[in-house]
């Protein structure tokens, strides 16, 4: 096999791994609830693929091939574990199951159930996102650990513990009932958004949770949308992330300097991504049920409008924030509201809005101090502004943002 053929085989494996991983894990684990063994089985199948496909060629139906191989490995793994734990009933169930697991490439897509399992209320909320990234996308613990600023060993242990809980606590693989659905869906959306790690970047406030996983988060939202096309908040979340992603190239100057949103060169924004975001926002609003992510996306949409009109409609942003505070009065929302008030009505009322926030909650919240510093500076309250700048700078992780704030501080 030539080097280029080998290369294309590897690409084919990567592609099928990316697209099929979550489907295979979800399908294999949906009845036994054994996510860990399902993952091991799919990984084993991918290893076999890496060994044999370059030699024998890519099979006609790569996903069906992977399923067959993974299923064999899965049965071995679960049998091994069952023997160790001497739990015959599950083994019998599995034998029954394996008859149903046909060779057909058309096996049911259980990823939606898996997403709901990952964001189940019985699972530690801090583990919702890592679980999704690992089980649906196949990301390794180390990569997730970097993004969430946890040691790789600790992240690995927490993931194993969460999967053991899924297996042993009887968490059902099912789509929640109508009654529970809004709340359960919120948890899934929150977890996807946490992977996105949006920089709240209008005034050099940075509130990153997950980091460097933006593409994976968008991928997850697309998967979710495909599985739940009728939910306006799913469209809202995707619109929000696409608007933010559209600005990636404009967030840094060519020399690496940080550029806040309102000063970004909109020529550098990605028009296709913005248009796609707008389509999702339209689709969401046509369903007449507003929600947190739609409102956040609407705020980003107003910023995007600057590419057409050259101006930012701060009044509109302020109004969206007012609605958002009613649904989701988080620190981020309230800080964003204050920044919008400052632009729409003046720095003084903006500061009043900041003053209303809880002193304990904001003490280590960087965006609050970044906005406060800018407003105090605009009002000429120099000593207080310097103090607030220091607080913001001291809480900043991103060196480019730190340099920007140091420069503004003067």
């Amino acid at each position: 096999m030539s080097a280029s053929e080998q290369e294309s085989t590897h690409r084919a494996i990567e592609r099928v791994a990316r697209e099929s991983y979550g489907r295979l894990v979800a399908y294999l684990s949906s009845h036994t609830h054994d996510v860990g063994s399902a993952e091991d089985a799919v990984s084993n199948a991918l290893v076999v693929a890496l060994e044999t496909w370059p030699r024998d060629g890519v099979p006609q139906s790569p996903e069906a091939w992977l399923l067959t191989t993974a299923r064999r490995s899965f049965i071995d793994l679960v049998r091994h574990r069952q023997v160790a734990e001497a739990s015959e009933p599950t083994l019998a169930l599995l034998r029954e199951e394996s008859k149903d697991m046909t060779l057909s490439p058309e096996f049911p897509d259980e990823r939606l159930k898996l997403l709901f399992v990952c964001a189940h209320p019985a699972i530690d909320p801090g583990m919702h996102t890592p679980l999704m990234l690992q089980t649906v996308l196949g990301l390794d613990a180390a990569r997730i650990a970097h993004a969430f600023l946890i040691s790789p060993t600790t992240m690995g242990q927490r993931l194993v513990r969460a999967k053991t809980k899924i297996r042993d606590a009887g968490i059902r693989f099912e789509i929640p009932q109508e009654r529970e659905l809004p709340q359960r869906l919120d948890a899934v959306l929150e977890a996807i958004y946490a992977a996105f790690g949006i920089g709240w970047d209008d005034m050099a406030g940075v509130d990153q949770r997950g980091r460097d996983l933006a593409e994976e988060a968008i991928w997850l939202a697309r998967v979710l949308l495909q599985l739940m096309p009728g939910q306006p908040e799913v469209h809202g979340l995707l619109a929000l992330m696409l608007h933010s992603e559209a600005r990636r190239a404009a967030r840094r100057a060519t020399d690496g300097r940080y550029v806040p949103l309102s000063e970004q060169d909109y020529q550098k924004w990605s028009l296709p991504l913005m248009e796609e975001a707008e389509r999702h926002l339209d689709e969401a609003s046509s369903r007449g049920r507003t929600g947190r992510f739609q409102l956040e996306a609407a705020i980003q949409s107003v910023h995007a409008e600057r590419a057409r009109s050259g101006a930012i409609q701060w009044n509109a942003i302020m109004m969206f924030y007012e609605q958002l505070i009613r649904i989701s009065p988080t620190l981020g929302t309230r800080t964003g509201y204050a920044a919008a008030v400052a632009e729409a009505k003046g720095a003084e009322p903006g500061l009043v809005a900041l003053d209303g926030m809880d002193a304990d909650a904001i003490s280590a919240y960087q965006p609050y101090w970044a906005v406060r510093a800018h407003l105090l500076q605009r009002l000429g309250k120099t000593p207080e502004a310097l103090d607030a700048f220091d607080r913001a700078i001291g809480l900043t992780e991103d060196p480019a943002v730190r340099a920007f704030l140091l420069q503004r501080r003067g």
Partner: protein
Amino acid sequence: MQFALLIFEPPQAFAARNADENDPYLGAWRAYHKALVEADIFVGGSPLQPPETGTTVRLKDGKRRVQDGPFADTKEQLGGFTILELPSLDAALEWAARCPAAAIGAVEVRPVSPEYLRRVTG
């Protein structure tokens, strides 16, 4: 729980020890220190003078061995330490990431050992 942040810095960070008041690295450290104090987690700590000012002592076979310079000769050298009072390692890592040295050197987070301290102090 107390955690030590061991701060490893590259040569340019040590060189900046004598920089003027407007040095951005100094400004970043000032702000970081203020944030630690305001968050009420700062227990103690200090920056250190450059590694070449260090002198290392060993006793080998009852003989004193004195060496100019630091214990280990690496590109990034121990440049200071900070002890913080925090509820968890997760919180300590958050603060380590915000440390100005993290972007140019490295910050090692280690829990202090009160158990061993008790055994030492009796």
